[in-house]
């Protein structure tokens, strides 16, 4: 559910929605959501001053809990 939610949120804000992939990795203390996007969309997902990445993290910890981490891979 968390990966599908994040995938939806990211797909809506990028130029290449078909190339958005989110993997949920369960670690001992955290659940990590790894986000992969088209190279041209990395800047969009991070946003000016990291604002968009921060917003994605805020919403995902609201939905999933404080142990949820979001990592944007480039």
């Amino acid at each position, binding site marked *: 559910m968390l990966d599908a*939610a994040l995938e939806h*949120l990211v797909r809506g804000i990028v130029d290449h929605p078909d190339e958005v992939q989110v993997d949920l990795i369960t670690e001992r203390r955290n659940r990590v959501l790894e986000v992969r996007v088209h190279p041209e969309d990395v800047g969009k997902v991070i946003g000016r001053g990291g604002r968009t990445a921060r*917003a994605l993290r*805020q919403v995902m910890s609201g939905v999933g809990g404080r142990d949820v981490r979001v990592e944007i891979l480039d």
Partner: protein
Amino acid sequence: MSETTPAATSTVDSEEDQTELLISEGDLAADYLERLLDITDTDGDIDMDVRDGRAVVAIVGDHLKAFIGPRGATLDALQDLTRLAVAQQTGTRSRLMLDIGGHRAQRKEELIDLAQRTAEEVIASGETARLAPMNAFERKIVHDAISGYDELETESEGEDPGRRVVIFLRNA
């Protein structure tokens, strides 16, 4: 009219276009948010409106705390993302306002109440009052609430996120 400038013509056009744009902003935002509610199995209805030149979208329901967050932080984040999702479709920057579970509406009432209480104190004591830091939207609510008092003036001072409203006697 031959003297009509292209700029004037486009102003008339843009007013109608503007309303249409705001309505479609609401629709696009509703689609984005509806899908999020579906995925997270959250009950909520979505209301759309156009107010003061902005699209206004509200998620209404009883169990929306997870989407509001501490002091509305998650709501603000979701508003940012919704604006980006809308702009992605329209190609125009969006100033859409999002409310969830009546949070902003309730906060607005609290701020008006605070502004009025502080106004009475400043009038009674003559002493300048500095309110807690607020975002631009909240400061505007306070400025507007105080504008009804002829004897008072307001200013904002400081830099975000520490920017705050100062209320003081006119000519004091």
